[in-house]
């Protein structure tokens, strides 16, 4: 679900830290350096992620594609994953074990041999199965230190947080109730911060 979709989910972040040097060039460099590569060509990897552009999510080129819209940096996190059904793995492992037993004229394989068969099968299947792409949009207002990520999925949010730090050397603080009171834009005055830390749950029933 992207920012141009009819229905979206948004996770809000506060961006901690500042870019040293020219902002646009530094962001451009971070997007280029951590742009998604082509997983389909890197056959042994199950999952890969990186930045891509809003205009061409499946064929990004940050020298060609726009990522600056007004005052906002707008780009996408793409996560490509090769999902292999456990039933397919089971089928191929069973067939391979039977083949090896027949070839060696033995009655059973050891635990380590079975483990090796499974690893071989997973590698072989990963080469054959194309990766499924998932694209999540990012809107970053550098001046306001605010970032919106168009997904509430835990894995996608965690990947964004890791990649963002690697790419721009800045930290993302997810805005949930406690952090919203600190960084959300309607912050509490300093003298109230201790009271926030000491809050305990209210019971409304009699």
């Amino acid at each position, binding site marked *: 679900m992207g920012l141009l979709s009819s229905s979206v989910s948004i996770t809000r972040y506060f961006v901690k830290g500042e870019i040293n040097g020219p902002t646009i060039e530094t962001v451009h460099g971070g997007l280029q350096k951590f742009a998604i590569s082509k997983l389909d060509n890197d056959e042994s990897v199950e999952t890969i992620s990186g930045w891509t552009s809003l205009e061409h999510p499946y064929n990004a080129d940050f020298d060609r594609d726009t990522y600056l819209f*007004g005052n906002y940096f707008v780009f996408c996190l793409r996560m490509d994953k090769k999902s292999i059904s456990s039933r397919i793995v089971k089928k191929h492992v069973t067939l391979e074990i039977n083949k090896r037993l027949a070839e060696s004229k033995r009655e059973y394989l050891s635990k380590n041999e079975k483990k090796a068969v499974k690893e071989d099968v997973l590698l072989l299947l990963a080469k054959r199965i194309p990766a499924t792409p998932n694209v999540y949009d990012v809107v970053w207002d550098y001046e306001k230190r605010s970032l919106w990520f168009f997904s509430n999925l835990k894995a996608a949010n965690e990947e964004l947080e890791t990649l963002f730090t690697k790419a721009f050397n800045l930290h993302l603080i997810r805005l949930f109730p406690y952090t919203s009171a600190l960084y959300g834009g309607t912050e509490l005055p300093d003298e109230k911060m201790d009271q926030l*830390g000491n*809050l305990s749950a209210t019971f409304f029933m009699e």
Partner: protein
Amino acid sequence: MLDISVAYNRYKFIGNEFLTWLWFMIDNEPNRLFTTPDENREIQIGSRIVIEKGIENTVEKITIKGDDAGLEEGIMALRKGALVTEIHLVYKENELTWAFTVKGESLNLSNLKLPETGPMESKEDLEAAVLDRIYLYEKALIAVQSLFGRFIQLRVSNDWRQQVIPAIKKWIAA
């Protein structure tokens, strides 16, 4: 500052109390929700509300769905000590309407639907379309943050114990 994951879990209740307070305010004092009188802004309960009560290690959950659903069961659950954990809201500002769900523990917005915007007819329209939508998303996010900001100021003040809790207790007991 506390470790983020510790803070998330320890203060989850703040978000659920916020949504419970928000329901109370919508039901009782809707005109006092937004402090700036210059804009025509209002917020209403939408088509879904989730109320939960933790009992030891289990959770009792009630979901009320439907555009005209009665919320009496929800009030009964509040009487038993439950809190709102998720709420669908309809926000109106100057004749534009947004609809979205807010989750208490994360304050994440989901199923966010914006007011109607024109179709994008060419590639050149992309920048305008993106900026239009950012403007509209920001309106909804500012509204939620402004409501939460109002709540949290109240929550750390003496008024919470002296005025708000008695008023909410009276509301759910009525």
